[in-house]
């Protein structure tokens, strides 16, 4: 087990390193630089030059990367070019909001998806099954930036049931979480359904029924438990999608999270911010998958890798 964990940690480190490099280069591919944004309309050429030098933008890119990486390894993500405040401060302020939204969406996606999937599997080809699979297909196909405004239109503007946008109490979380979660629920439902159909056709299920166990027990305790592995996999993989969806939802619902921050920082070419926030984002995703990988070992005793 230990070497498995060690292996996973190395992979994690490599992923983060690679991501940081990719982010660093690609953001600089965009036309314009932070100074172009800062001076907006008009400035004197000397001012521009001085500012560029001060921000270290006139040094070769490789040098800039080296300096930045060095700092990162000492847990210093630098300062935002826009307001000179530490990047970590900005992230700490906004990160909890995004995580709240992501987790809420994950909850919606998992509950709805798993429930629908199990129900569909227990009554395959019934009206419920067909209906929910159709809904799942729609859920996968429908983009977040369409579903969001539709929900706002129905629930906020027409029904006045929920707030249209912003943050505050739980009621502000409902629509964004539904928007992002339902899109993902479709996929989870389909996966759950096929995993369940697979296990429900196994011999041990037939045995359990023969023993006289109640159907509910058979489905949940035996079939579902064994179907968990692929389901958990898909939920973990969906995290990335959910985080991405959260970014879009943040813009639509004016939810003050890190996604909005990333979008703003890209507009402003605030390099340290973009690099720092994306690194944290990638790290989150990588850690969650890392945790899920470890969870496999717990869930299925057969998967205890030895060297």
């Amino acid at each position, binding site marked *: 087990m230990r070497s498995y964990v060690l292996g996973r940690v190395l992979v994690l480190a490599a992923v983060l390193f690679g991501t940081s490099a990719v982010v660093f280069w690609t953001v600089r591919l*965009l*036309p*314009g*630089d932070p100074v*172009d*944004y*800062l*001076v*907006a*309309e*008009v*400035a*004197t*050429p000397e*001012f*521009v030059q001085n*500012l560029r030098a001060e921000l270290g933008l006139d040094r070769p890119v490789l040098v800039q990367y080296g300096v930045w990486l060095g700092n990162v390894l000492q847990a210093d993500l630098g300062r935002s070019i*826009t*307001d*000179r405040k530490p990047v970590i401060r*900005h992230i700490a302020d*906004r990160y909890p909001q995004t995580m709240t939204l992501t987790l809420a969406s994950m909850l919606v996606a998992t*509950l*709805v998806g798993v*429930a629908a999937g*199990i*129900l569909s599997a*227990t009554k395959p080809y019934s009206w419920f099954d067909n209906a929910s699979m159709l809904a799942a297909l729609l859920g996968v196909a429908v983009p977040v930036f369409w579903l969001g*405004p539709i929900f*706002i*239109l129905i*629930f*906020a*503007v027409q*029904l*006045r*049931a*929920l*707030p*249209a*946008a*912003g*943050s505050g109490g739980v009621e502000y979380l*409902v629509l964004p979480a539904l928007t992002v979660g339902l899109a993902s629920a479709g996929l989870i439902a389909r996966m759950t359904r096929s995993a369940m159909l697979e296990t429900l056709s196994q011999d041990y299920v037939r045995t359990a029924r023969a023993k006289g166990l109640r159907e*509910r027990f058979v*489905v*949940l305790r035996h079939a579902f438990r064994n179907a968990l592995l692929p389901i958990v996999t898909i939920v973990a993989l969906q995290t990335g999608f959910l985080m991405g969806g959260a970014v879009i939802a943040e*813009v*639509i619902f*004016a939810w*003050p*999270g890190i996604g*909005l*921050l990333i*979008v*703003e920082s*890209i*507009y*402003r*070419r605030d390099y340290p911010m973009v690099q720092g926030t994306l690194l944290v984002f990638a790290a989150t995703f990588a850690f969650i998958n890392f945790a899920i990988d470890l969870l496999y070992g717990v869930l299925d005793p057969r998967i205890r890798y030895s060297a």
Partner: protein
Amino acid sequence: MRKGLALLAAMLVLVAACGSAAPAGGQTTTAPAGPTKGGDLVVVTGHEPQTLDHHLATGVYDGYMSFTLSNGLVRTKPDGTIEPALAERWEIPDPMTYIFHLRKGVTFHDGTKVDAAAVKFNFDRLFDPATKSSRAQPRLGALKNVTVIDDSTVKVTTKFPFGPFLGSLAIEPIAVIESPDAMKKAGVADYGTRPVGSGAFIFQEWVQGDRVVFKANDKYWGGRPNIDTLTFKIVKDPSTRLSLLQTGAAHFAVELNPPDFINLQSSKEIQTTAAPFDNTLFIEMSNIQAPFDNPLVRQAVCYAIDKEAIRKTVLQGLAKDGYGILPTTTWAKNTEAERYSYNEAKAKDLLNRAGLPNGFTTTFWHPTGRYSGDAQVAQAVQGYLRKVGIQAELKTGDLTSWASAMRGTAPDKPGAPMYMRGWGVSGDPDSQIYVLYHSKNWGLAGNYARYKNTKVDDLLEKARLETTQEARKNLYKEAEAQITKDAAACTLYDNVRLLAYTKKLHDVRIGPLEYQFFETAWLDR
């Protein structure tokens, strides 16, 4: 399983039950007796300020916040004329000297006095290299010295006679006066998050990415505002801004999509205004790059575009027809300016004479989302150009991409050959026409098109030295006529800001800048 399904159904029913109340009907407002006091006003905007430090203001909305919580020595009325603010009167004994007499008894929000020393401190800090204000030199570079005569009298001198000076003091966020005490305590790094001014609203908090909150200043020299709090919520998505307005969560929305705006015009609860703002939209062409270095080609482009049709169809009549280069909101507007009317045949003829009978190919850069309908207008322009044989490939991007595409990399290294751009008058027509068309401003300084005409340079410089409006107006008339003849750029129309607000809101001061002011606003209760 059944339990799960039942749970889901119960949740949906619960949600529906919460909202079973009928949507709030539009109550027609009965004629109000007068301003009612109280209320929390919510304004939704699409941009967040970068900093609240008035000296470091650069972005679109930084000034908005500064003007809400502070005042300058003078300010502009909606019609563009200058009126007293912190200075109750002033004299101009000679063209390079201004003596301001400050209002007595005015204090900053932290209780310290607004006096001549405070004024001097502000301008000293503005020009202090340690402050690193990017706007100081380009916008107020004419300022020479600020001297304290006595507690309530300040003398300001300029380096040369500069007609636009008073206008700049009125418009520039960098010219507002804020508390020296607060600035000293916070230091340059931190002041941008806790400004202290003397204006109608006191800064409360700035939740990054979400909102900026103010509360009414009981001791405001102009009279306490009617509303209790003022919140600017930052909502990037224009449809979401609309939704917030429709649900009543916001009272005032800035920059809506043109189709949403049109739909709202028939609303019983919401008032729409296409507020003109001091801004003309141009199609600019790089005057030093072929084929646009030939004036005939530039003129052809101007004749090829049907501005009227664009205004009426693409913008649904929302933009105002401009006169010429200077927008209609400024005192220097020239109502008799010569313009290029739509004439496809003439355009083709000019291209022939320029030796390009088969037209040519070029790139056209335009912003998306900076001005109402900008992308659609660009497409329309592309269509018109195609009819005379000019193949224009459209390019667009975010603000920074567009800005860097236009500017080019050095004064003599232009950027995109053709692009769309709006430019406004900040207080004084000089801030537009001089910046755009004087030859020493090639490149980053504002003359992105690299236009040069020494006769125009002379006229613009003379207009700066003159101090009477009449004389300056005539000089600008001449300059405009020449610039138009040279077809340095093609004017499209006067930009407008699409605003919408609940009919329960009254007396908002709109324009002429990109901002709106809520000192006198009030809400029906």
